[in-house]
């Protein structure tokens, strides 16, 4: 029996609702309909009142979660698409993100964000927001790449006493399968070596981990052993594991799906240059999506988003520098 990434998210929520009476889920079309991606399928029947439909009011959804958390609950908010969280941006960064610092009262809310591109989804159903939220203080930003992480990191994220931006990748929902949800359960803030190597380090997260591993496999026949680090969370960011890898390889490529100005890949490169300049045998490189809105047409979209081919060709340049 195989389990998909979206199954893992549903199973994690089922377990959270079973184990913790403080947990409830709130979002658009998530109750009897089961959510746009079926991440809450059947849960409303099992937990009456605790899986509730919201009006199309992202601002109020997050404000409501903040109030509920003050009163001892652990709300999970489902954004229908990460893109729509821009409507709730103020509540997320100014209300939830500042709350603990301003008041000393923790803010245990989790906001699930169906993120990233899929063919044909276009500018407003494809965005990767992790860099935007990581830039603000007070938020934890999770970017699981595996079925096991999708499961465990949602459970561990809800257990945190802080606001969690849980970026779940829509491309992985049904494409990514595993034998089970069991897997190495690393703590939040710890990166994982997705593929060991010694000639170059690729630092990636979410769907880009899989593209990077495939690119590394392509280069194996040519004698290159490329290491892939899966960050798992972009905030906190496990600089230590990244530096240890770069110490082994001397070369760094950071890959992210979000827009190219700033963001997680720029942060990785910046930290390695600052703390590990002496480890580098070549200038560090970055790959991100292009600096335009995410296009609709599959031909444009696949050229907009970083993929296996671009990562492989970029690695070729890096490896022979």
């Amino acid at each position: 029996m195989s389990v998909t990434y979206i199954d893992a998210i549903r199973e994690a929520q089922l377990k959270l609702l079973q184990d913790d009476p403080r947990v409830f889920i709130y979002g658009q079309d998530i109750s009897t309909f089961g959510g746009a991606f079926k991440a809450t399928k059947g849960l409303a029947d099992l937990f009456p009142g605790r899986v509730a439909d919201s009006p199309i009011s992202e601002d109020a959804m997050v404000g409501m979660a903040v109030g509920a958390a003050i009163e001892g609950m652990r709300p999970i908010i489902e954004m229908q698409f990460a893109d729509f969280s821009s409507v709730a941006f103020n509540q997320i960064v100014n209300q939830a993100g500042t709350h603990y610092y301003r008041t000393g009262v923790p803010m245990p809310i989790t906001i699930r964000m169906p993120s990233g591109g899929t063919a044909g989804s276009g500018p407003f159903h494809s965005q990767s927001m992790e860099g935007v939220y990581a830039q603000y203080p007070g938020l934890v930003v999770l970017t699981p790449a595996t079925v096991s992480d999708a499961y465990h990191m949602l459970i561990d994220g809800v257990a945190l006493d802080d606001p969690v931006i849980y970026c779940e990748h829509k491309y992985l929902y049904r494409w990514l399968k595993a034998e089970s949800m069991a897997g190495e359960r690393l703590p939040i803030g710890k990166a994982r070596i997705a593929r060991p190597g010694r000639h170059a380090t690729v630092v990636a997260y979410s769907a880009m981990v899989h593209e990077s591993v495939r690119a590394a496999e392509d280069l194996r026949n040519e004698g290159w052993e490329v290491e892939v680090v899966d960050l798992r969370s972009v905030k906190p960011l496990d600089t230590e594991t990244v530096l240890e890898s770069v110490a082994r390889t001397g070369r760094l490529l950071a890959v992210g799906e979000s827009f190219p100005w700033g963001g997680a890949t720029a942060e990785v490169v910046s930290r390695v240059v600052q703390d590990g300049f002496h480890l580098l045998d070549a200038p560090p490189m970055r790959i991100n999506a292009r600096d335009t809105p995410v296009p609709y047409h599959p031909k444009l979209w696949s050229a907009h988003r970083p993929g296996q081919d671009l990562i492989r060709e970029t690695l070729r340049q890096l490896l022979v520098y």
Partner: protein
Amino acid sequence: MQLATQPKPAGLAGNTEFLRKVYQAMLRARILENKMSSLYKAGKIVGGVYLGRGQEAVSAGLGASLVKGKDFFAPLIRDQAGRTAFGEPLLDCTRTYLGSVLGPTRGRDGNVHRGRPKEGMPTMISHLGVQLSVVAGMLFAKRLQGTLGDRVGATCLGDGATSTGSFHEGLNFAAVERLPFVLVVTNNQYAYSTPNTSQFACADLVEKARGYGVGGLSVDGTDFLATVSVVGEAVRRARAGEGPQLVVAHVLRLSGHGEHDDASYVPQEMRSSHCGRDCMDVARTQLLELGAVTADEIAGWEEQYAEEVQQAVAQAQQEPQPDPDTEDWMAVSTHFPAR
């Protein structure tokens, strides 16, 4: 829906104790805020000072109608009177304005951005309208926990904040969930310098109640007895399960937006019109007429509150300020090995 309520304080006139409590909170707040204004003008307060002068009746009427320890109250910028009536100690105010590290925000935020979230009083942020959904969420949580009881949650806004998307989303959410929620909008004619004519196009903001499917009450906020009565009625209705209530109180802001602002854009005709009346003066006259207080009592209170305020200021001034070297600089409560 009741669009206009005449100042007929049915039953209230007999409730002398309650009226005295509301007036005492108003007076305490006015004296406290006058002191904050003086300290600001003397350069003793860093950042802004924002007064509720002219809207004490509606604010204190709300704060006094709520029960601390049970109800929720999210005050906004001009709610010193409501805070005081709800039970916020004067020290929370002086410590926050004067930057004492012992205050509720420990120097991390200032002036009116203080609260006690775990005691039913969430803190405001500067972005207007966002507290509606927070208070509604607190009530939603209590309903999920099965402990809602006859609890009420209330928050306040000005006329300007009714133009925000958050106002719409929050009030609509409270209405959809039919929560015991009270929203008090004090229309003080100006949002900073912007007059009502540039802010909304309906005749009275209470008309919005019909669109959201919530109860609506409108009142002359300078009329102490009418205002206390109407705000109390809104709280009673919410408590009785009649769903969210919108109260609109009409006043004039008797100060600038903050103490840095001379409000020279407010025309003299408006200042001398009916809405420019000071609710403190009206309250005093009405209470004296009712025989609920004597002039000597009020004089005694004034003296007592001035002394209390002086003590709260002196104490906050003597307390330590935050120290950047011992500040933990943690924006999250979890201690991750990585950052």
